[in-house]
């Protein structure tokens, strides 16, 4: 876990206030690191200006890997390594391989997607995500601002947060 990171943490009670605050705070030149909320807030991604996730691409690649792997494995095993006569069909015939290929594609695509997601969001095993404020799992929206990413001072950022409706402004060091 990284150390020596200083954050200003703004606490918001209401998602409408939060949404407008995000826009105004970004407009005033403060770079927001992340916002944690207890439930999905509609439009928050757009307000934060996030790029669209590239997870679908990863999922497609995993799926493609599954397709190729399944087709190759079945063809090699049933066609060449240990040919078996099943109902008089050709050893390496495509139609019976399709259901397995389909299932393996789905398996690889979905597990690949989930595992990639867990890794990129720092939720892999033996790594605990930072908690800026434990109340983000209850009823507060928590906005984290990394001081290293901002030119403004701690107090200035705190003032901007208060002006835009933050109910509390705290500090957090990791």
């Amino acid at each position, binding site marked *: 876990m990284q150390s020596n990171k200083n954050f200003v943490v703004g606490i918001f009670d209401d998602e409408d206030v939060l949404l407008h605050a995000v826009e105004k705070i970004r407009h005033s030149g403060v770079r927001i690191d992340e916002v944690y909320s207890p439930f999905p807030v509609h439009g928050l991604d757009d307000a934060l200006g996030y790029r669209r996730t590239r997870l679908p691409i990863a999922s497609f690649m995993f799926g493609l890997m599954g397709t190729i792997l399944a087709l190759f494995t079945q063809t090699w095993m049933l066609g060449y390594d240990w040919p078996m006569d099943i109902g008089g069909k050709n050893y390496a015939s495509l*139609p019976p391989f*399709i259901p397995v290929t389909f299932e393996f594609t789905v398996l690889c695509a979905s597990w690949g997607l989930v595992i990639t997601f867990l890794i990129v969001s720092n939720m892999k095993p033996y790594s605990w995500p930072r908690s800026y404020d434990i109340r983000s799992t209850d009823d507060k929206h928590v906005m984290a601002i990394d001081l290293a990413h901002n030119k403004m001072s701690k107090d200035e950022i705190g003032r901007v947060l208060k002006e835009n409706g933050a109910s509390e402004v705290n500090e957090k060091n990791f």
Partner: protein
Amino acid sequence: MIADEKYDFKSQTKTKLFILGAVGLLFLIVGIFMAKNSGGHEEHHASTEISKTLTASVAPQEADHQMAAAEEHHGSPVWLKRVYAAVWHNNIFFIGLGIIGLFFVAIQYAAQAGWSAPIKRIPLAMGSWILVGGIIMILVWFVAKSDIFHWTHADLFDKSSKSYDPIIDGKGGFFYWPLQHGGFPIFFFLRMVLFFGLWYLFFAWIKKEMLAEDLNGGSTHWFKARKFSAIFLVIFAVSSSIAAWDWVMSIDTHWYSTMFGWYVFASWWVTGLTAITLIVIYLKDAGYLKVVNANHLHDLGKFIFAFSIFWTYIWFGQFLLIYYANIPEETIYFINQMHTAPYNWIFYANLFLNFVFPFLLLMTRDSKRHESMLKVVCFIVIIGHWFDFYNMVTPGVMKLEGGMGFLEIGMGLIFTVVFLFVVLSALSKMQLVAKHHPFMEESLHYHI
């Protein structure tokens, strides 16, 4: 909140449709002359030889049936049979578009869907084809039944006849009950009339409620339309399946597939969805339907993407079961399609047009939200499913004499023009966007 908006069926549009129809007619006439003068008789005998060797290798008993069928099918000249097959193929295809229009509306009511509120008039207008398609079907059935449906030949049911067919006689009750086998297929005919009658009745009821809502507002019309929709869905679940057996599967009388009802429905449904999407996109291009935005198109795109995969699943399910079981009277259906031109290239093209292209092209979010890409995919899918229905109908009717050329394309164009004419004039007679739809506000703010 919704301004009055009416589709104006301009005379320029009508002229364009007429030109397209004239091209179709020209194609049809050229196609008929080509089919007449191609001297198909020698070819026919040569191909019968191929079929004998081909089917003999599969199953001796089935080969006999095939040969008997090929020899005895001398009712009409080849070109006329091709015309009948093309009419039946196109009629089944476009009836699908009509009935799916009503089915789509009913699904939206039953699911209490909000997103579709501004586009529901387009499928509703498509539903007005049900009556036209039904009339065409009944007329064509009387004219062409002995060429399209092998089971209408009375000698198949006559035990003293040489061509007595115990298998078809065993299935005869499905067509002829309660009358004698080989007479007038009253049960089959009544089902045809009953289905069109019921579908049209529910179309009229739902349409009445939707249009009354424009005038009166309130939610009572919505609830009534939902009630009719729910009942219609139950009826449609049964009738669409039986219609698929009656009108399509019974062409290949010996053959049967337990998945066929689903298969025809899947093909109809995805074609209907693409037709709705295409009409919405063209209306938007023409400046109508300003309330429809990328989010609504995204949902339509997801529908097409998902149900293209669903169709593939059904297609493959049917194919794999028959391939694996390897029962001669079932495999012959696919053997004929995979080894005879033009069915063979259509058979493989089918998978690319209806699965590979929509699957890869519509996978990303952006392609579903942009009209240009959606339009391309819609055309691919519509043409693909037109070929799909071609392969369901024509091989059974034409056996080895089938063709895909000017005749079939011309007939397809003519049907397209008449269909668009009926749908667009129905659309121009109502509000293009529902005025007092209870979910309209939700749909205007729809965001995904």
